[in-house]
């Protein structure tokens, strides 16, 4: 698994970093810590640069030396591309077992985060955002929502530091990817959480493919001794569910072309629900 943490210098990014560390501790994923400066040439002493250095220390110091898969080994010389057609021999320190990179990019945050995730082949982007109904970054207001809307991979949007005891996954389509199921598995394991699987219907009707999938997913988790509760609800009550029921929970939403939520709600519904949700949201693809 490859995890891309995208952060700035504000407290919500520290919460997201903690979630990234928790994920990395369990999965031993390859990890990139990314900061984005708005200047064209981000200086080392820019706030986000300083924050990244702090995040790097916090990340690497979270393990005892003998347990860390990210301990840097002996340096070795490698040819590194520096500009078009030019490579330079540099001494590179590599991770002992897993990759760990710290990167600073310049430009519009959402665009740079999405580019990095594509170039790196990320399986998950983790980022924080301010609490409340705005879901913003301090220096680039719409960045979190843009990343959630346009990422190719799953996105974990961390709103604040709090325990997760339940994953609430809302199924609104017949097709879901194997990767998304696996992502939920990891979240269940990391948080030792139970799973509530909600099948969304419209006016009491549920597509046969969605119902079949709901049963299959229920069986899948039961076979793996995961505590699962399956129920149905009408899509008209979905916003109320988010506002009233989600407390110490992680809300998991599937994004897909055949999503009932996409048809029922106007464009931009993901951003709207992510904003309304008071807790961490996992948007799966």
């Amino acid at each position, binding site marked *: *698994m490859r995890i891309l943490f995208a952060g700035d210098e504000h407290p919500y990014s520290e919460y997201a970093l903690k979630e990234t560390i928790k994920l990395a501790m369990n999965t031993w994923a390859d990890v990139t810590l990314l900061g984005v400066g708005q200047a064209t040439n981000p200086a080392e002493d820019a706030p986000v640069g300083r924050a990244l250095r702090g995040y790097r220390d916090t990340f690497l110091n979270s393990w005892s030396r003998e347990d860390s898969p990210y301990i840097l080994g002996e340096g070795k010389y490698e040819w590194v591309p520096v500009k078009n057609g030019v490579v330079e021999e540099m001494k590179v320190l590599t991770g002992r077992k897993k990759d760990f990179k710290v990167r600073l990019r310049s430009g519009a945050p959402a665009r740079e985060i999405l580019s990095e995730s594509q170039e790196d082949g990320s399986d998950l982007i983790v980022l924080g955002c301010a609490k409340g109904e705005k879901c913003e970054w301090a220096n680039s207001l719409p960045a979190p929502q843009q990343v959630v809307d346009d990422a190719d991979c799953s996105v974990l949007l961390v709103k604040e530091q709090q325990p997760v005891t339940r994953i609430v996954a809302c199924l609104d389509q017949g097709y879901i990817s194997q990767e998304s199921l696996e992502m939920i598995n990891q979240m269940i394991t990391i948080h030792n959480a139970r799973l509530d699987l909600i099948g969304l219907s419209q006016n009491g009707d549920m597509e046969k493919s969605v119902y079949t999938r709901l049963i299959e997913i229920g069986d899948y988790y039961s076979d793996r001794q995961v505590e699962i509760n399956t129920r149905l609800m009408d899509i008209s009550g979905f916003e109320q569910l988010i506002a009233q029921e989600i407390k110490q929970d992680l809300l998991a939403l599937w994004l897909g072309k055949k999503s009932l939520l996409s048809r029922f709600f106007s464009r931009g519904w993901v951003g709207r629900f992510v904003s309304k949700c008071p807790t961490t949201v996992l948007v799966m693809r």
Partner: protein
Amino acid sequence: MNKLKIMVLDDEPIVCKRLKPALEKQGYEVDTFTQSSDAMEQIKNVNYDIIITDLKMKGVDGMQLLTEAKQLSPKTEVIVITGFATMETAKESFHKGVFDFIAKPFKLSEIQEVVSRAEAKIRGE
């Protein structure tokens, strides 16, 4: 150069279905198993160069298979893939001599790259 033999064990058929053609395309000979008990029997009869195994399975789990495989053939490189990763299982896997530990989801390229590294180690490159 002789083809390396790889065993893939995962109780989810879709994982075997994805990995087999991807690894065969890389030039490996691949056997897949969805029942860990069958895989356990097989390693007593066939010497695999690389074993890719899930951890959480009914009956014999991946950790037991890893232990048995390394006892039978210490040179076999074992790669663990798991959907329910914990720090303890990661540490235990490495303690038992696993070549790499990969949490799901992963991209095929990630597995292919790890298998290539395992091959390089086996061939002494």
